[in-house]
């Protein structure tokens, strides 16, 4: 195929440039494209993450407010839990959150606390409670106690506790 033949073919193909739509055909063409774009966007599912980035629509506003409320409630719940576990000074003891009753003269007063600082739940060795017999005395103007009413064994003891050896 020589150059002239190529030129002839090109001239012939240029005839096709005159195959154009009738006048006014393109007047509504872009409107058709816009209508299709609107249709496609209305039917196409929008991903949830994209939906939330759209301009403030009522649904997005409600979703954001719900999410913020949930996050706020979560923060409050977490802070309450942490406070109850660690205490206000960060000491992981349940006892320190109890009211200080040392002023009443009850229990151990070594640290001004009602009970020992060791938690009851963490106690492993049983506590030995010794029962000391007391002598009952009655006033002279009353009848004496019946014999054998308060007879206790010598040096009685009861082992109580929460440890594994119980």
């Amino acid at each position: 195929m020589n150059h002239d033949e190529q030129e002839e073919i090109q001239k012939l193909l240029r005839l096709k440039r005159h195959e154009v739509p009738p006048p006014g055909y393109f007047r509504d063409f872009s409107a058709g494209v816009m209508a299709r774009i609107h249709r496609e966007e209305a039917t196409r599912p929008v991903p949830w993450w994209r939906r939330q980035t759209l301009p403030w629509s009522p649904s997005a506003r409600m979703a954001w407010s719900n999410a913020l409320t949930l996050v706020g409630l979560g923060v409050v719940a977490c802070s309450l839990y942490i406070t109850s576990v660690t205490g206000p000074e960060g000491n992981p003891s349940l006892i320190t959150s109890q009211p200080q009753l040392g002023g009443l003269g009850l229990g151990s007063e070594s640290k001004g606390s009602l009970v020992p600082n060791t938690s009851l739940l963490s106690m492993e060795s049983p506590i030995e409670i010794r029962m000391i017999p007391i002598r009952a005395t009655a006033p002279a103007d009353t009848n004496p106690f019946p014999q054998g009413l308060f007879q206790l064994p010598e040096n009685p003891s009861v082992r109580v506790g929460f440890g594994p050896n119980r």
Partner: protein
Amino acid sequence: MEPPAESAQPNRPTSAADEVAEVRKLVREAQSGDLSAYDELVRRHQERIYGLCYHMTSNHEDAHDLAQDAFVKAWQAIRTFKGDASFYTWVYRIAVNTCLNHLKTKRNRTLHLSLNDLEINPENDPELVALVSERTPRRDAGLSELHRRLNESMLKLSEEHRAVVTMHDIQGMPHDEIAKVLGVNPGTVRSRLFYARQQLQAWLSDLVG
């Protein structure tokens, strides 16, 4: 007194540089979601995109749908447009791919022509009048017959060869730009063009003389 064309479209830029700047501005606005800016971009490119689709399919209805498809796809992907090429090259590439996909999926379908829907008026082009009246051996073959033969021959070409003939010989696009659109070397464009013309010459030998 201003010329009628300018007074009819006062917002249109007057120079090529203004046109490029204006298109870039419209693209930026469209990328930020401004549909009216995209509408203006469609208006500026619709005839060439439609022409590409028509010459690829030789069918008016298909060309209409494919051109609209291409613009809808371009809108959906406009945020990915980086501006490396011109917007025209980018949207043209989308249209070519849309046409090629359409032709491949409907390769076995009977293709039909719809020249009656189109206006064929080469009388305005003296060169073509001379071509038809002097160089066409079968003078009794009317213009419609000539176009029918041309379109039949175009449809015999493979999609890739038809694309380069459409872009270069019909729409006048340079080799380099065709290469950008198709994502191939300019040498590949030239060789496809040569082979396509060779085939067309064989099929239209009685018209070429």
